[in-house]
């Protein structure tokens, strides 16, 4: 038997021998009351507090104009969404290392969470996971009707058994490791902008 298998049996039997006397029940997670009201303003406020920003864009053309206005010097725009062409399609990327030169990555999130101002992005949305992390800046499209109130609702929507990677992203990369001073752009994206753009019906 390989060592790891022996260790597996040793660990599991040590656990069984040492289990506390009382087997405790799993508590029920109740539904918590939420204050009534629209979720979008709450989402926007939390997003700003996390160092990101949200923009209402009325059309794809407006979204493209906004992208250029936000990142005028961008040379490589890698897009994972059909609405915005960019300069490189993420579907053509075979190896994540090819994304090292990306200035702006463009993706669409499945939904947002008002409680933290986070967006949910999966491997299917990113096509190549590294797009969310090697891009210097990120643009995230979000349908404003796809916002859930809190993390309980958020976890009812995720399908972890259907994706190898999923991330609640609350803003750009941040650190406070030097004298507790908040700095954005530690290792991941330097900025994150959410564009409210409804998903076009097919």
């Amino acid at each position: 038997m390989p060592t790891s298998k022996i260790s597996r049996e040793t660990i599991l039997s040590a656990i069984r021998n040492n289990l506390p006397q009382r087997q405790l029940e799993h508590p029920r997670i109740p539904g918590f009351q939420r204050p009534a009201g629209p979720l979008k303003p709450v989402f926007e406020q939390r997003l700003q507090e996390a160092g990101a920003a949200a923009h209402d864009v009325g059309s794809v053309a407006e979204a493209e104009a906004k992208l250029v206005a936000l990142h005028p010097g961008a040379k490589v725009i890698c897009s994972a969404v059909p609405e915005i062409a960019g300069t490189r399609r993420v579907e053509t990327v075979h190896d994540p290392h090819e994304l090292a030169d990306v200035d702006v990555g463009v993706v669409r999130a499945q939904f947002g969470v008002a409680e933290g101002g986070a967006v949910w992005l999966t491997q299917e949305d990113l096509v190549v996971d590294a797009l969310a992390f090697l891009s210097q800046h990120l643009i995230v499209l979000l349908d404003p009707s796809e916002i859930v109130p809190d993390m309980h609702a958020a976890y009812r929507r995720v399908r972890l058994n259907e994706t190898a990677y999923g991330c609640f992203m609350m803003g750009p990369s941040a650190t406070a490791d030097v004298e507790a001073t908040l700095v954005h752009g530690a290792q991941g994206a330097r900025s994150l902008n959410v564009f409210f753009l409804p998903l076009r019906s097919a």
Partner: protein
Amino acid sequence: MSNAKRVDPAAAAELFIIRDQVHEPMHDRFLWATMQRRDKEAAAIPEWEELREIASKIKEHTLTHLDHYLEEFEANATKRGAHVHWALDAAEHNDVVHSILQDHGVKELIKSKSMLQEECGMTPYLEHRGIKVIESDLGERIQQLDGQPPSHIVFPAIHKTRQDVAQVFARTIGTDPHNDDPHFLTEAMRNNARPRFLVAGAGMTGCNFAIAETGTFMVCTNEGNADIGASVPPLHIASIGIEKLIPRVEDMGVFLRLLSRSAVGTPLTQYSSHFTGPRKGGELHIVLVDNGRSRRLGMPDFWHSLKCIRCGACMNTCPVYRRSGGLAYGATYSGPIGVILDPTFDEFKYSELPFHSTLCGSCSEVCPVKIDISDQILKWRRVMAKKGYLPLAKRLSFAVAGHVFGHPEEYHVIEKAAEPALDYAPHFLVYNRSLNPWARDRELPQLTKQTFREWYLANRSKHANVQNQS
């Protein structure tokens, strides 16, 4: 008993305090500010206390069914294509990781913060075998470049000033030693780390929660460094302590609402990432590590410490930790949680730690999973006393106290004698920073003119008279 030298946190803490007028007050101030942000976030959630209670119960349920959930996790992760390994102890963990790296011909790896890998001493193990290990979390990297372990589980370099960091970077990556702007320093490390991400043959992460229902493990960071390590190199290895299990996806809602609020006072970390099997085109290995955890599960007084989600709130609120600095604990885990975890690894080496506490109880009050930390500290003191590990200074004073309390007449003499002694002791002696560093910012309360006994004797007769009249 181990052969290890006993850690002396009080002596180490004194060095931190007397070092200068900058480091210790700064450390205290930053962590207290973090605590205040935590308090504000917690107060904004009406069900905060209920969430703590539920989180505690989910963890207790999981730990009392741990064998079942580990098997469920393993089966689901394997089904999704992950390779699951088991390691009894630190040595086996390091060996498993090393063989995976060897099999893939990896010479350089980039890792995110993992207290478990720290606990296992993984980095020196791999480096002795010719594998270059780069920390990608900024705070961890600062500590790695400075040849120090992390001093805090969330803010590894929080005991350093910006000038210290500028000096470390100037020495090691060639930045301007006079530029200590945190934005500049962060940017310098970003530019230094990025090429390392691109050449690394493997990315390593720890794990915040492992979900049995789906075989998912999740990692929370603010920098996104764990995600780069997991998404760029072809190989991802995650080290997971067996206590990280939770049963269901739904449970995550409770834990994520508590974790970052308790840790840094934000609703979530910037990135809460879920890994279920390898990414497209990648390979994923999971190492489930015991390293003393199954034994701890069998300790009736201490198994609740396995509920810990490593938020660091107990450290930020602790008056002793804030003034000592994490390095004073001489262990992987510092602060109140360290005081109750470290002795399970080596009772003799860490026998002083339970005495490095005021037992104020604040740690238990802020713990998001309601670990009875301060009660456990007291219980560890009893363990140490029973084993005869009582610190020398305390053994002596306890012996004197025992004699004096056994002879009341001597106590009254000493009590009255201490008063004029304090009157005449020069201020510089009582407050001398090197003799009593803890007193630096404190004044002793005024002594009353009357001892309690004098007051009692005077008043007892009055009181007795009243009683007699009724």
